């Protein structure tokens, strides 16, 4: 039995969602990127560029199009917000040799973006080193306006933070139907971003890794769909 869609709301209603952290406002985009209007900066986490070629080097020939797909998606959201700075929150490359394996066309695409905006690589556990060939500035982490931008979230941190690393995903069940999608997860102090890369999977926000970060105060979840970013009540979420 096929149930057709009810009448649609306007698509733009869900394209991005406002959120605030440390008194600053942000926009959580349906692509999984976070725009910071005050800084004119676009933040993305866990690009995992060159994951396909990392597998190919080990004999599993995954399609070599992940880097171009990820960069093309990134270029589109940069355009949408007219961002001037891009901050990649670590694990930008699947491994430290990633930049060397990039196809010339993909390297060119990255360079083109970098010509139009300032590019900051935050180091991650997959890419503790990023060679200069990748362009941009490499930093261990970044502190802006009282907010720490880093790869791994740290439960002991005093300041507000925006991090990646965990690839959060949520599972929602409505009227007997289930959907599992990447998501933003946060509370007033901390935001963990979804992984942006084309080949990245997700970890359920109800798994133990998220517990120490969000404690008893609860978490807010924004799930990513094909046409929007949706705030979802945490009581609707379920474990895998």
């Amino acid at each position: 039995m096929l149930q057709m869609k009810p009448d649609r709301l306007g698509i733009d209603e869900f394209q991005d969602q406002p959120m605030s952290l440390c008194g600053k406002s942000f926009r959580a985009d349906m692509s999984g990127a976070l725009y910071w209007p005050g800084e004119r900066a676009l933040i993305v986490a866990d690009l995992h560029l060159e994951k396909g070629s990392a597998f190919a080097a080990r004999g599993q020939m995954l399609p070599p199009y992940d880097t171009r797909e990820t960069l093309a998606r990134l270029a589109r959201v940069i355009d949408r917000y007219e961002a001037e700075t891009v901050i990649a929150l670590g694990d930008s490359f699947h491994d430290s040799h990633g930049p060397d394996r990039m196809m010339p066309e993909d390297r060119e695409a990255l360079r083109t973006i970098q010509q139009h905006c300032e590019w900051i690589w935050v180091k991650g556990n997959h890419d503790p080193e990023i060679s200069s060939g990748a362009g941009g500035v490499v930093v261990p982490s970044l502190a802006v306006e009282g907010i720490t931008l880093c790869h791994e979230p740290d439960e002991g941190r005093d300041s507000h933070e925006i991090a990646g690393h965990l690839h959060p995903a949520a599972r929602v069940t409505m009227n007997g139907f289930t959907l599992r999608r990447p998501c933003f997860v946060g509370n007033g102090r901390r935001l963990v971003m979804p992984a942006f890369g084309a080949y990245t999977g997700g970890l359920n926000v109800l798994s133990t890794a998220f517990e120490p970060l969000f404690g008893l105060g609860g978490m807010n979840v924004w799930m990513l769909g094909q046409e929007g970013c949706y705030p979802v009540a945490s009581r609707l979420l379920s474990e895998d």
Partner: protein
Amino acid sequence: MTGKRARRTSETASPGAAIRLPDVIASWFRARRWQPRPHQLALLEAAAEHRSTLLIAPTGAGKTLAGFLPSLVSLSQRRSEKKGAGLRVLYVSPLKALTVDIERNLATPIAEMGLKIRTETRTGDTSVARRQRQRIKPPEILLTTPEQVALLLSHPDAAYLFADLETVILDELHALAASKRGDLLALDLARLNTIAASPPMMIGLSATVARPTELRAFLVPQTSPDERTELSHLVVAEGGARPEVTILELDEPVPWSGHSARYAIHEIYAALQRHRLTIVFVNTRMQAELVFQELWRVNDRNLPIGLHHGSLDAARRRKVEAAMAAGTLRAVVATSTLDLGIDWGDIDLVVHVGAPKGASRFAQRIGRANHRIDEPSRALLVPANRFEVLECRAALEAAEAGAQDAELSRAGALDVLAQHTLGVACSGPFSPDALFAEVRSASPYSALSRATFDRVVDFVATGGYALRAYERFAKLRPDGEGRLRIAHPRVAQQYRLNAGTIVESPVIKVRLVGKRTLAGHRKGKPVQGGRVLGEIDEYFIEQLEPGATFAFAGEIVRFEGMRDTEAFVSRSNASDPMVPSYAGGKFPLSTHLAMRVRRMLADRDRWRVLPAPVAQWLELQAEHSAIPAEDEVLVETFPRDKRHYLVAYPFEGRLAHQTLGMLLTRRLERSGARPLGFVANDYGLAVWGARDMSAMIAAGDLDLGRLFEVDMLGDDLDAWLAGSSLMKRTFRIAAVIAGLIERRHPGREKSGRQVTMSTDLVYDVLRKHDPGHILLEAAWADTATGLLDVARLGEFLNRIRGRIRHQSLVRVSPLSVPLLLEIGVEPVSQRSREDILREAALEMMREASAPTGQ
């Protein structure tokens, strides 16, 4: 054809005319007062000339002994000198359990004849030490599965191992051919022909099939595939006693819809009591659970009744099988897991609940009762709803006529070819020219083009992408002599871990935990222990909420939650489980039976054989709407409950109807009929919408001829499929078989979901950037044949061109009632994912904007 068949068998019926059995074997037959059967002698005669042969024989005809007899004869005589390891006979069966069974059955005659022949099995369960020894010092007769043959062939010593091979026996060939496992087997046979010192004789054993030609071609190398199809020799055994099949008829009317046959449970139970051992066959695992529950509900005498289906834990299944063999069970409720081969015991009745869906499957299942050829098999057919009465009648007539379904022939799968190519490379460097010729000698691949073959080789080497990114990581490299070799020994290790064509859909173990553990769980303690009941498809568990009850492993259980990759459940005392609906495991109605059903429907004279309520139902249909002629399709439009329905009755099986439903809704959407949903079953489909389709047709706004135009199988199908989860599923399987995605292995496995997740991502990226990639092509072919029945739908659309009979009605028609009753029973198979999120978000907003203080 029949004349020829009869002559061949009668020629050999005079014992000893052409063939003299060696004394040891002849005296063994005499000691048991047995006569070699005509087809056994015919096979011996063919074997004397080393002719590859297909033996078609019904169950119980001594097929297996016939298959081995030539080998026993030759091994009892002076053997030719060893050129290799000394393996003479290879027996390949689709089932592990069958190899063990055959080993046991062979041991007796070999011992009694005093022959010195070593026989061993080799399956995934065989110990590593033994498997290694078998490669160096094999037995004379090795009993194994297609996967193991592929693995043996991938070792560098394969040529030595198989040098002495004289005979290959392929059991249950009808079940293997025309599947990916059959493709792999065909390629392996081609390989064996190449590497054995002289080409071995192939003996195929098969149940009765409609088109033996395909199986005959399977057995022999196709030396000039462009010019002619080579066929093996054929021996057909005399059919045994005709089966006694009856359809259960009760005074009570058969229900309009449903599949549980609950109305007939007392009569089924009464039948069990009258027989020694009964198999109750059903079509789906969930039906098995239901019927099992129902039988126990009425089991006043506490008859031992067992349950057997594919989701149950293997140990539990073995127990049931042992109990059947030991004669301690009186009945077993089973799915297709008991269809094949093995003699589990003295079964004297087969009950078939629900219509059998295919003439061949039905014949096979009836054959399970009485594995003795000269006694008739007894079967009782129990239709579960009204349409099934027609279908059961058709199946019965087919059984009486000895008719079989014709399988559509299919081209060998490319993912399997990729796996095989890598396997060949692992055994040693290969010349692409020679391998191409070898592959084409396997009948499923005889139409393979050189260009496609080269793409497959390229895929194996570098992934075969339009973007040549992975040359430096190539798995196959030229060896300087025009051949390709593997680039690294690691490649061979990877191959061996991933070989095989059986890709399980992700499953979840189900564990039964006790009350105490559960109480602990509710207090937040981790759940430990619990007995494993079996495995269930992940997608099913995904939809359950804690507290939901379902029937599983013969009990009603309550879903409590998940722990890692296991679901834990507790015993429930609910009398009516929330019955889950399995999408898998339902066979669509076969083309042959469908044709018989259509014919029966069209011919009023034949309604007399139907039970009175069913005949009256058809009379009503004739009065209020119409009965379609045999070559027509009936399309009805009518309003009901503020909705407007369009119902069609193609009788082409569920898969084809679902595909048709998807495509019709797309088209109706375009013509402005505003369709809202559809439902399909084996007989027809109903689409409902917001606009009056009768009026649209009358006004010429909707043209049924255009609506059912065959061109829907072009762009509409492509557009729908591209984003469909069906494609993703088949892509995952093709990607695993072809070696693009690694298989999960015990110990170091990721959860099934993670794998599903990543292949979906890979699929999306590949479709966007390399739409012509060979794996997408392979997945499309699999989806079109396996899941959508596109070919069948195409034949239907062509057949009914200009033969659509439209009835515009004021209310629902009698014939449509069973179909409309399925609305709400079938799970929603497709649904906009976006809507789930949107609803969840709106729910949150409603909550946020609710007045406070509530």
